[in-house]
């Protein structure tokens, strides 16, 4: 089976769907890979490396039997797809209904990375986790760079530097990684989440759990249930009282398919010390903070608000490496011997598929 890797066109996107290492691994699994020249350049993978890994960089990736991407294809790209062709990528099936419609019309077998069920067997394909890992780590670096203070405590001849206090709201994959990274840097870290199991997980990283007295439930997939309006209000109030204690707040709270929950009202931001930093990893879904400007870094009330929407792309090398592994695992699942063999009974195949040949799934 031939797989094409086009260059990502989305502005600011530096990742690539397959890295040379994955190309050579797929090669031994019966796949042939067409890579568009320059596809990996922004992620520090030169064309030479692809060629050495056995990729074909002369053919157009769109000619292949399947196309793997990071971001959903643009309208123009969709036009190059054909009936029965395979498409893999973050296709935003829950929010971009129009895009999915277009794909259905072209009759492609489209698999959305974010729709892969979060079951044990599917973990190697779980791109949400791998990219969230990057975001969580990077969020701390973004905050640390912008904070006019030290993260760690230092007792020096010129006096003692108090450690920064960091609060992480939403302790899923990204949140836990943020907690771990901030803790490593020496900050005093607290985590908060509405799922009850998270308390132990936060503590297992050496941090403390912020008890607000608000706990929701976990749904079957391990995701959080959306809070009721009343619960949301109580949460906002409780947080407004506690947030001014912190120098850095990193928010990651998401509920799949919904707008990100509003956790930090403008009042809470105003209460923070000048120079404090908020990194809102939920910016793409509207942000957990009322003042977040998705895609931008702004200052409000002397507080820096980091609302970058594509954090993993700022660390393209490893983000691509992990994503490529996820994609390869999915490809090997869909085409075990290098030949497409879609088993619609299979939980992963059925779950990840958003459009099918000749008919929408």
């Amino acid at each position, binding site marked *: 089976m031939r797989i094409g890797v086009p260059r990502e066109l989305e502005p600011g996107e530096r990742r690539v769907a397959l890295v040379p290492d994955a190309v050579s691994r797929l090669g031994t699994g019966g796949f042939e890979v067409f890579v568009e020249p320059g596809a990996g350049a922004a992620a520090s993978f030169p064309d030479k490396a692809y060629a050495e890994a056995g990729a074909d960089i002369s053919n157009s990736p769109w000619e292949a039997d399947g196309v793997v991407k990071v971001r959903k294809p643009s309208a123009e790209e969709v036009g190059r797809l054909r009936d029965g062709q395979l498409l893999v990528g973050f296709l935003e099936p829950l929010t971009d209904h129009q895009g999915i419609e277009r794909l259905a019309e072209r009759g492609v077998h489209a698999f959305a990375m974010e729709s892969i069920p979060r*079951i*044990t*067997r599917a*973990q*190697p394909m779980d791109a949400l*986790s*791998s990219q969230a*890992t990057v975001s969580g780590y990077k969020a701390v670096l973004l905050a640390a760079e912008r904070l006019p203070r030290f993260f760690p405590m230092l007792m020096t001849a010129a006096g003692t530097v108090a450690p920064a206090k960091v609060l992480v709201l939403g302790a899923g*994959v990204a949140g*836990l*990684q943020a907690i*771990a990274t901030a803790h*490593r840097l020496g900050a005093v870290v607290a985590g908060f989440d509405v799922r009850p199991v998270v308390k*132990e*997980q936060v*503590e*297992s*990283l*050496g941090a403390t759990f912020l008890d607000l007295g608000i706990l929701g439930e976990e749904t079957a997939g391990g995701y959080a249930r959306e809070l009721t309006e009343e619960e949301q209000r109580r949460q906002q109030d409780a947080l407004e009282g506690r947030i001014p204690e912190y120098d850095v707040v990193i928010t990651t709270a998401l509920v799949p398919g919904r707008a990100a929950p509003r956790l930090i009202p403008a009042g809470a931001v105003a209460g923070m010390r000048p120079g404090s930093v908020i990194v809102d990893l939920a910016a793409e879904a509207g942000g957990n903070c009322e003042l977040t400007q998705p895609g931008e870094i702004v200052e409000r009330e002397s507080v820096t608000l980091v609302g970058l929407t594509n954090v993993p792309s700022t660390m393209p090398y490893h983000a691509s490496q992990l994503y490529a592994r996820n994609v390869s695992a999915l490809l090997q699942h869909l085409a075990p011997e290098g030949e497409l063999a879609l088993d619609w009974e299979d939980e992963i195949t059925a779950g990840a598929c958003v459009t099918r040949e000749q008919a929408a799934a």
Partner: protein
Amino acid sequence: MSRDVTNLLYLITIVTFILALRFLSHPTTARRGNWIGAVGMLVAIVVTFAQHAVVSYWEIAVGMIVGGSFGAVAARRVRMTAMPQMVALFNGVGGGAAALISLAEFHNLAPDPGSLKTDISASIMLSAIIGSISFAGSMIAFAKLQELIRGRPIVYPLQQPTNALVFAAVLAAGIAIAAGSEQQWLIWVLVAGAAVFGVLFVLPIGGADMPVVISLLNAFTGLAAAATGFELENNVLIVSGMLVGASGTFLTLMMGRAMNRSVANVLFGAFGQLAPAAAGGAVAGATDGQVRSATAEDVAVMLAYAHKVVFVPGYGMAVAQAQHDVHALAALLESRGVEVSYAIHPVAGRMPGHMNVLLAEANVPYPQLKELDEANAEFSRTDVALVIGANDVVNPDARNNTASPIYGMPILNVDNAQQVVVLKRSMNPGFAGIDNPLFLNPKTVMLFGDAKESVDKLTSSVKAA
């Protein structure tokens, strides 16, 4: 050689036996201890030969050659797995010898009125009873372990009254002897009755509990030997017999404790009043399908004498925040020449890289961390896989059981190692909420408790080993 000189020379034997016991209690010196004991025994035999009261040299020498060769051949020939029944056998013959000595002494002294002082006759009766019980009981234990008779508890109606009756008869004969009766038949009744009691006593005990019973009978034989010492006014017999009696008793208690059962439960459990404890099982006698729990000392010895140990951390290590302690244990093992590495499962813990973060904090060197494939290639040459609060990531159902919700997940094949030790607090499942057949694997022992505390205990025990 006069009797007094003999007794003084016996002091050498006494000293060697004390040293032998000390040395036997330590893994590094145990073998040397056994040799020291053997040398002491040789001294005692030579000294006894040299005593001028002993005359029938030849007969004795022949007897020794006969018995010795039997012992040597039996002990050398037997398979390693049959060692426990050998111990039972040799213990039995020792008890038998003590009983026979008493029989002969009584036969010898009784006709000569007044020569039997109360303490002597009391000693004779004690060593005859205890020796005889030990002989017969050990033989039954031997037969059970050798599967000459079935290993399961043998119970029948009116068992307890029968036992009580036999014991009462033996006791009556014993009291009569101690009280000064010099009837020959009494001693025969005594010895025979005690033998019957020994049989009845051991029959209802299950095969898995035999090690504890043998240890108890071993202490009995020691006591019988000490009693013969009183009969013969012989210091080496009193001291050695009592040393074995005392240390054997203590050892029996410790073995019971290691099995999480009281000795009373072991001995009388089959009578139905005391149900066997649900959780524990004997380390020595466990069979497939049973959970075996070990002590920290036990695991420490495994680790200390292993060549290669692989640590398998999981979410439990994180919860217990045991990473520093784990590194300290690994460093200690390394300093003892053990090859150490860590097998990191890609989804161990609750976030990607969870184990990495913790182990880096504890300064574990990166090259010691092995990925799944690399680690799996190593388990077959691993002596001990030490699973620290991991569960799902070592669940063999993922490999074998198509019905399992985690079927298909690649796991760490710790069951390829020689031995597996699992540190967790209970039999509770992990994240996936499913049972783990690894815990029932005969290769596996569980060390229950908080991971941090367990690892700390292991570290101190390894230091002591």
